[in-house]
C-alpha cells in the first residue's frame, strides 16, 4: 500500500536517481576525436628547451618538428625532417642544412633558418635540463650566436668547436631539445629575458602536424591540427585524458570511452590481447633496468662478486613471470634498437658458477648488503626475485623500498650498496648510455660528470677513454665497433647487472589504427591515428 511516508521517501530520492541516470554515457568517443587515456601528471613544461619528461616530450613530438629525425623504417638511420638535405665538412665540424620551404607554423608563417638558429641558440642560452644534449658539443652562451646561424632564408650553418662523430651530432638533433620554435612567437612572449620560456612552458609554437590548444595539469591535453603544417592528419582532434589508475583505463577502453590506453599492467594487457575487439601495438624503449653495485663496499668491489651476481640472477624467470609484455631481458648497457646494441645475452642463472666465483673471491660464506629499489610495480616483485637468487649464492640482501626520487637521491649521494633503478637514454645515440655507464674521469665529489659510473665509484680508464674516442670517431663502422667492444668489456667488469629493457605498449580500441610508438617518447607520432 502506498503510504504518505513512501510517497515522501520516493520524492526525496528522485533527484538522486536523476543524477545517476540523466547523463548515462554514450560509450563512444565523438567522431573525429581520438581519446587517449594516459598518466600525464609528469608534465613540467612543454618548452622544448626545458621539457624532459615522458608525456611532454611525446606531445612536443607532435607539435614541433626538428631538422632531422630517425628514419621511420630504420631508427638507426637519420632522415630529414625540416631539413631537405645537409652536408658535413670533411673534418666533421661544419654542418650545413638546407631547409624545406613548405613547412609552416600555426600562424601561417614559413619555417626559416632564422627560426632554427634561434631555437638552438635559446637551448644553449637557457641551459635548462636537456640543454646538455646540445652544449656537450662545446656551445656556450658566448659562442653559440657565431657558431649556429642562418646564412640564408633556408640555410642554416652549425659549426662545432671540435670534430665530433656525424651520427652523434645528428642523433642529438633528433631529440626534443632540437625542436624548432617560431622565433616571432617566442620573442613576442618574452619576459625578463626568458626567450619566451615562461609562455612556452604551457603553450606551443611549433610547425608539427598538431598544435596544443589547452592543457589542464593532471587533467587533459587538447590538440587540434596545425592548419598550415602541410602534414595530413587522420584525426582532427586528439584529447589526452589523465587517467592514473590502470584499471580505470581498461574500463574506459572496454566501454569505448577511450580509443587508446597506455598504462595497462601486464595482466590487463593479457586480458586485452584475448579480446579480438582490441589490438595491441608495442615498441622496445630506450629504458634499461639495472642493479648498481657501489664499489666502496669491499665485497662488491671484487671482480668475482660482480660476475657472481650477474650469473646468479634468473633473468628469464623475471621477464616471463613478473614482466611479460612490459620488460624483456637485455644485458647490455645499450638497449636493443639503438645503433650498435648487442643482441646476445651472455648471462643466465648458473648457481654453481656463481658460487665458484664467490669462493674464488674468498667469500664462500657470502655476505650481507642492502638493495634500494623503487616502491612501485613491478620493481618490488623483481627485487624479491633478485633477493632470492642472490640468497642462493650466500648474499643476504635486505631490501630497502623508496620512492623513485628518494632512491635516485641516495645513489647520487653514493650512499647505496646495491640499488635497482631504471635509466632512460637521453637521445638516440649510443654515447648517451655509454657515457652514463662507463665514463668516470674524476671520481671526486667535485666531478663535472656525476652519472651512473660516478655514482657507484666505478673507475675504468680504458672504458672512460673509449667513450671519448667513440664520440670523435668519424667513421661510422669503426664507431659501432668501439661500442660493441665497450659493451663486452662492461659485461665483464662493470658493476652494473643489466636486467631488462622496457617494452611500451598501447592498447587500441575497435577500429582504431595508425598509432606509432617510438623507441623514445620524442618519436611517438599521432598523425596517422585513424578511427574506422
Amino acid at each position, binding site marked *: 500500500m502506498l503510504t504518505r511516508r513512501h510517497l515522501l521517501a520516493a520524492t*526525496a530520492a528522485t533527484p*538522486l536517481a536523476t*543524477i*545517476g*541516470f*540523466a*547523463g*548515462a*554515457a554514450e560509450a563512444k*568517443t*565523438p567522431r573525429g*576525436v581520438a*581519446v587517449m587515456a594516459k598518466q600525464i*601528471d609528469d*608534465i*613540467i*613544461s612543454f618548452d622544448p628547451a626545458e621539457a*624532459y619528461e615522458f608525456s611532454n616530450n611525446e606531445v612536443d613530438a607532435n607539435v614541433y618538428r626538428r631538422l632531422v629525425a630517425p628514419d621511420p623504417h630504420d631508427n638507426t638511420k637519420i632522415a630529414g625532417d625540416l631539413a631537405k638535405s645537409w652536408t658535413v665538412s670533411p673534418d666533421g665540424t661544419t654542418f650545413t642544412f638546407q631547409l624545406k620551404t613548405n613547412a609552416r607554423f600555426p600562424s601561417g608563417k614559413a619555417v626559416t633558418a632564422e627560426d632554427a638558429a634561434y631555437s638552438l641558440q635559446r637551448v644553449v642560452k637557457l*641551459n*635548462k*635540463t636537456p*640543454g*646538455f644534449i646540445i652544449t656537450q658539443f662545446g656551445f656556450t652562451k658566448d659562442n653559440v650566436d657565431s657558431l649556429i646561424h642562418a646564412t640564408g632564408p633556408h640555410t642554416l650553418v652549425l659549426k662545432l668547436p671540435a670534430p665530433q662523430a656525424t651520427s652523434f651530432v645528428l642523433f642529438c638533433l633528433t631529440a626534443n631539445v632540437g625542436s624548432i620554435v617560431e622565433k616571432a612567437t617566442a620573442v613576442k612572449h618574452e619576459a625578463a629575458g626568458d626567450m619566451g620560456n615562461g609562455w612556452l*612552458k*604551457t603553450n606551443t609554437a611549433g610547425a608539427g602536424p598538431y598544435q596544443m*590548444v*589547452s592543457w*589542464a*595539469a*593532471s*587533467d*587533459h591535453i*587538447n590538440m587540434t591540427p596545425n592548419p598550415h603544417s602541410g602534414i595530413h592528419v587522420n584525426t582532427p582532434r586528439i*584529447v589526452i*585524458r*589523465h*587517467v*592514473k*589508475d590502470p*584499471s*580505470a583505463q581498461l*574500463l*574506459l577502453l*572496454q*566501454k569505448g*570511452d577511450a580509443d587508446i590506453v597506455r598504462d595497462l599492467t601486464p595482466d590487463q594487457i593479457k586480458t586485452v590481447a584475448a579480446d579480438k575487439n582490441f589490438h595491441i601495438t608495442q615498441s622496445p624503449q630506450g629504458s634499461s633496468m639495472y642493479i648498481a653495485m657501489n664499489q666502496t663496499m669491499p665485497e662488491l668491489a671484487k671482480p668475482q662478486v660482480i660476475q657472481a651476481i650477474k650469473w646468479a640472477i634468473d633473468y628469464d624467470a623475471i621477464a616471463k613471470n613478473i614482466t611479460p609484455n612490459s620488460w624483456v631481458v637485455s644485458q647490455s648497457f645499450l638497449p636493443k634498437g639503438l645503433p650498435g646494441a648487442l643482441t646476445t645475452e651472455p648471462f643466465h642463472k648458473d648457481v654453481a658458477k656463481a658460487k665458484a666465483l664467490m669462493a674464488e673471491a674468498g667469500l664462500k660464506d657470502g655476505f650481507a648488503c642492502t638493495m634500494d629499489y623503487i616502491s612501485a610495480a613491478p620493481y618490488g616483485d623483481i627485487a624479491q626475485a633478485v633477493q632470492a637468487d642472490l640468497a642462493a649464492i650466500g648474499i643476504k640482501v635486505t631490501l630497502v623500498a*623508496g*620512492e623513485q*626520487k*628518494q632512491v*635516485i*637521491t*641516495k645513489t*647520487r649521494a653514493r650512499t647505496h650498496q646495491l640499488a635497482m633503478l631504471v635509466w632512460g637514454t*637521453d637521445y638516440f645515440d649510443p654515447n648517451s648510455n655509454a657515457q652514463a655507464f662507463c665514463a668516470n674521469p674524476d671520481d671526486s665529489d667535485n*666531478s*663535472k*660528470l*656525476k*652519472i651512473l659510473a660516478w655514482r657507484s665509484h666505478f673507475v675504468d680508464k680504458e672504458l672512460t677513454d673509449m667513450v671519448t674516442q667513440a664520440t670523435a670517431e668519424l667513421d661510422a663502422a669503426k664507431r659501432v665497433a668501439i661500442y660493441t667492444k665497450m659493451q663486452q668489456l662492461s659485461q665483464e667488469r662493470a658493476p652494473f647487472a643489466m636486467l631488462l629493457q622496457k617494452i611500451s605498449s598501447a592498447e587500441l580500441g575497435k577500429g582504431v589504427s595508425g598509432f606509432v610508438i617510438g623507441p623514445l617518447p620524442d618519436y611517438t607520432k599521432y598523425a596517422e591515428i585513424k578511427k574506422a
Partner: protein
Amino acid sequence: MRHRLKALAAAAASVPITLFGLVLVTFLIGRVMPIDPVIAIVGDHAPPDVMARVRLELGLDRPLLVQFGIYLNHLLHGDLGRSVMTSHSVVHDIKQFFPATLELAIVAIFVATVIGIPLGVLAATRQGSRIDTVVRVFCLAGQSVPIFLLGLLCLVIFYVKLGWAPGTGREDVIFAGTIPPVTGLLTIDTLLAGDWDAFHDALAHLAQPAGVLAYFSMAYITRMTRAFMLDALAGEYVITARAKGLSAARVVWRHAFGNISVRLVTVLALTFAGLLEGAVVTETVFSWPGIGQYLTVSLLNADMNAVLGATLVIGISYLLLNLLADAAYTLMDPRVR
C-alpha cells in the same frame, strides 16, 4: 552565552598560531625528506652545473630558518610560490584543484547526511530488530570495504555493465576546455554558462565518486547517530516525555534527537573536513583532478611549494569547519543560551 562567545573568540584567535605551526611543521618535513627537491625540477640526468644553478635559484643553499622566513614573507603577501609540477603559481593550481574536491565533498556530505541521520535514528529506535541489523551491516560494509575497491565496483557495475553512469573524469571530452571557470564548481559553472548538456554531463560524472564518498561518510554518520540516539533514548527525560503521553515521533525527534544534534554537528563538520583531505583514493580511481591528487603527486615529486600550499588550504578548511562547529554549539546548545 558570554562565556561561550569568549571561548569562540579564543578559538578564532588561535587560528593564526595553529596555521603558523602547520606551515612550520610541513616546511620542516619537506626539507628533511630524503628526496632532493632539485631532482624534482631538473630530473636525474641534469648535469651538475644545472643542478647547482637551480639549487641557488630555489634558495636551498641558505640556512633552513632563512628559507622559512623568506617563504613566510611571501606567504603573508599572498604568494604561495610556483609549482614545479604544473609551472603555474600554487594559487592558480589551488583555484583549479580545490573546487573539484569541494564539489565532490559537498554533494557527498549532503547525501550522507540526508540518508545517514534518518537511518541512524531508525536503527536506534528499532534496536535489535531486523532493520537495526541491516543498518549495522550496511554501515560496517561502508566503513570496512576499501574505498578503491568500492569505486572500481561502482565503475564496473554502473558504467561498464549497466551503462547508467559515465566513466572517469569530471566531464566528457567534448566539453573539455569549453566551460569558462568562474567558481571552479563545474556544476555551477555549466549553469552560469547556460550549457544544459554540459550541466547534465557534470552531474552525471559527479554521481559515482560522490556516491562512493557519500556511502563511506554515511556509514560513519549513521553509526554515530545510532550510538548517540541509543544513549539519548535511555535518558530519564525521554522516559518522562513518554510517561507524559507524548507521541513517539515527538519523543524521538524533539526530545532525543534535539539533544544529540549538537554532537552530530561536530561529527558532520569533521566528516566534511575529512572528505576535503581524504578523498585522494576516490580521486585516483575516478581520475578526479582534486586537491588530494594534487597534494599526493606534489609530495611524491618533492614539489614543496605545492605541498605547502595544499596543506595550508586543507588546514584552513579544517580550522574553519571546527570554528563553525563551535559556533553552531553556541547557537544550538540551550544550556549555553
